[in-house]
């Protein structure tokens, strides 16, 4: 697709750092985003990287803006190449424009680019060596870029003082010197006209900077998570790491399982004993969990699954993004049973939906998935403080008595859930078909009743409890564009830029089961469109199945190259 040049008032600036893994892109990016946020700028950071520990070409985009943005864009206002592969890499993926200013060492800027107008050569390494070591070049680079935005110098100094405190006063001092050198260079560049004035908001200074990984992890803790068992797999591992690092503080049992089969069986065992467990995995790991998912369905044991999507099949593109596992989750497990799936679009969603997943799983004793993806998890931006004041955890466990029956057929379809050791009763669960006591049965009438309970009645309850999609954009739209999960921000921004007054956005943060209002909403639109990060439009298929509304093939914007949608691509689609 042809990139669209954005014709609008520039209120945000895209800085792209590019270079090999291990060169310090993260260090510079972390400093930029924190110091700019502390200066009152909105910041959004997203990463794309290769599946290797060192080398390759990775990029980190920081968007500095006067208002909240949280989408990837192709536009690069300032490119900071850290090695020779950086500029060709950006050019290859349409991320380098005529207007892009390049700030870097001569060695990192290929000859054919050095003749350009907007190239500013800065000898970071040489300057760093003068300070005693080339390790300071990243701080110098950060100082240069921050100065272009007239960032709060004290905020920069405070950041470095805190960040390097553990390494001793000398390291702090050297970094402060490096920063000041960068500031001097930055001032020279601003006097040459390379300056970016972005409106600031005082309130932003007090905001948080969270990644999708952080938001999911915090949401889990808020959901009462006290057990996590997982096998590491990108991009889901961050949640396991986060919870492990906070395990003593919050009383979380952490089990780095031998495989994903063990992980989900442990999660189910933990819930059986009354813990609130999460398993975090990606598509390949979830494939191994299918058997366990079915066990949760049969035993009516709650389980929360964080399914961090990345491109498949098989190992696919391990570090890239895709929305390719929706059908995988919905169709996973042998046999038929109820389940629900959330797909956060914002950090707010990621926190609250993860928290909600625990309550929902507990309330109906079903598996609940949170479908994220690499793009959401590895991106971070500033958000207001999360308000915890009204939060509580739902209580669903009962104290059992002598007559307790784990699978009692009740009026509402949910059997009271007891746990072993809490009350006079016994808790018997079974993966075979079972009677109300939990014991194996081959009574086929009982079988039918249990299926109605596990599947039909629970699906009814889950549907009644489902979250409606969010409608935004045009007030009375002729056209509706559907999106789900992490595409929320890119759709919002593209819709605004497109200036389309005839188009509304229908964003789903719960993708299964669908809220009953969906069929009506879609039925009222003259035209329905969809954008998805997969090759087969999986969510369109779900919508078709659930509502009868079919999104025409020509109205589908599908991307499956491993990258998230860029704002430009979506604008192009909306205005095609």
């Amino acid at each position, binding site marked *: 697709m042809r990139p669209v040049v954005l014709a609008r008032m520039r209120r945000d600036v895209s800085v792209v750092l590019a270079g090999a893994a291990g060169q310090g892109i993260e260090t510079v990016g972390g400093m930029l*985003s*924190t110091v700019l*946020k*502390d200066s009152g700028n909105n910041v959004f*950071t997203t990463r794309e990287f290769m599946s290797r520990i060192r080398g390759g070409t990775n990029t980190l985009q920081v968007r500095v803006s006067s208002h909240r943005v949280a989408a990837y864009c192709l536009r690069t206002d300032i490119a900071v190449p850290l090695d020779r592969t950086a500029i060709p890499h950006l050019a290859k993926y349409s991320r380098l424009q005529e207007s892009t200013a390049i700030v870097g060492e001569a060695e990192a800027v290929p000859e054919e680019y050095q003749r350009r107008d907007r190239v500013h050569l800065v000898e970071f390494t040489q300057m760093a060596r003068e300070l005693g070591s080339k390790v300071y070049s990243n701080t110098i680079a950060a100082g240069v870029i921050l100065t272009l935005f007239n960032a709060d110098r004290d905020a920069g100094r405070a*950041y470095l003082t*805190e960040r390097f405190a553990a390494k001793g006063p000398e390291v702090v001092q050297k970094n402060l010197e490096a920063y000041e050198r960068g500031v001097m260079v930055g001032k020279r560049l601003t006097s040459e006209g390379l300056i970016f004035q972005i409106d600031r908001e005082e309130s932003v200074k007090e905001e*948080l*900077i969270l*990644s999708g990984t952080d938001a999911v992890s*915090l949401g889990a*803790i808020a*959901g009462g998570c*006290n*057990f996590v*068992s997982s096998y590491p797999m990108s991009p889901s591992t961050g949640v396991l790491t986060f919870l492990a690092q*906070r*395990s003593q*503080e*919050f*009383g979380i*049992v*952490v*089990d780095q*399982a*031998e*495989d994903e089969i*063990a*992980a989900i*069986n*442990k999660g189910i*065992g*933990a819930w*059986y*004993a*009354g*813990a609130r*467990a999460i398993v975090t995995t990606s598509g390949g790991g979830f494939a191994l969990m299918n*058997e366990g998912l079915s*066990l949760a369905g049969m*035993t009516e044991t709650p389980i929360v699954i964080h399914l961090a999507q990345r491109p498949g099949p098989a190992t696919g593109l391990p570090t890239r993004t895709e929305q390719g596992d929706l059908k995988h989750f919905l169709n996973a497990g042998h046999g038929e049973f109820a389940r629900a799936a959330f797909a956060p679009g914002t950090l707010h969603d990621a926190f609250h939906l993860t928290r909600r997943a625990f309550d929902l799983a507990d309330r109906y004793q079903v598996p609940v998935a949170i479908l994220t993806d690499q793009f959401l998890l590895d991106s971070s931006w500033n958000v207001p*403080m999360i308000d*915890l004041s009204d*939060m509580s*955890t739902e209580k669903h*466990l009962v104290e059992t008595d002598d007559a307790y029956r784990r699978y009692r057929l009740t009026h509402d379809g949910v059997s009271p859930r007891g746990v*072993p*050791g809490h009350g*006079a*009763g*016994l*808790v*018997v*669960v*079974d*993966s075979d078909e079972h009677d109300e*006591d*939990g*014991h*194996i049965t081959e009574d086929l009438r009982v079988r039918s009743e249990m299926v109605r309970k596990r599947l039909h009645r629970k699906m009814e309850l889950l549907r009644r409890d489902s979250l409606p999609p969010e409608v935004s954009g045009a007030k009375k739209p002729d056209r509706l564009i559907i999106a789900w999960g992490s595409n929320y921000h890119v759709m919002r921004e593209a819709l605004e830029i497109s200036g389309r007054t005839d188009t509304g956005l229908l964003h789903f943060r719960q993708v299964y089961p669908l809220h009953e209002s969906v069929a009506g909403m879609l039925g009222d639109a003259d035209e329905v469109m969809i954008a998805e990060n997969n090759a087969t439009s999986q969510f369109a298929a779900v919508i078709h199945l659930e509502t009868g509304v079919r999104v025409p093939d020509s109205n589908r914007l599908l991307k499956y190259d491993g990258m998230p949608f860029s704002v430009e691509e979506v604008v192009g689609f909306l205005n095609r």
Partner: protein
Amino acid sequence: MESKEFDIMDRVNYDIAWCPGCGNYQIRTVMMQALAELGLRPQEVVLVSGIGQAAKMPHYIRVNVFNGLHGRSLPPAAAIKASNPHLTVIAESGDGCMYGEGGNHLVHTILRNPDITAIVHDNMVYGLTKGQASPTSRRGTPSPLHPADRQGVTSEPLNPLALAISLNASFVARAFIGDQEQTKDILKKAIRHRGFALVDVFQPCVTYNKVNTFRWFKDNTYYLPDSYDPTDRVSAFQKAIERERLPLGVLYVSPDRPTFEEESGVYDTDRRPLFQREVDWKKLEALICSMKSAT
């Protein structure tokens, strides 16, 4: 506590799905006696099993039951214990379930050392699927898939005791259900042991294993003498790899290994099981507040 407290049969009209003469019946009797003699209440015991004939055991004993998937009894058992250390958690299943489908879980459960007991009914054959070889089938044993005219089973049998000792399991024992008193004694020691305990219980399959019969087990086993020191790992390993006559009793004890629950740190200052705990909103708020900078 009396053994009948654990007997579900006089409370429900239950159809036991084992063959007449199966060793599982005696293991059931011994299990109920062991639990009673240890002074446990049914409410504080959880029996976890996988799939197979042995795996039906929890349904025939009056305790809490988690009857899960084939080969998967150990992961949920460990998780149940980690979620509530006050419970007595016993995983019980057959040799196919524990050593075949669940082999990887056995290895890693031994390494983690949760305070649970694994009781493996070892009859050296797959009974429920009608007589195929199991991981512990002896070389040369005929099976539907390893006909006698083609030498029978050609794989080396798994040696669960040697495997467990090589992994420094904290308690390794073998029993033969032909001797109920001794089996009960071993089971009691295993359940009482703090840390992961593996008990391999010889139990003949009267329908499908015509080689390893009651007689065969009787003739091919012997008890370790009272003078035997189970904390000596090298001699334990030597005992475990004996091939002529197979030793019975507690082969190995590694008494000082901390358990998985202890290592988790979650119970250091708070003994309550996880289901009794609340979200610490104050701490969470402090954590969220600390995330004003991305470092």
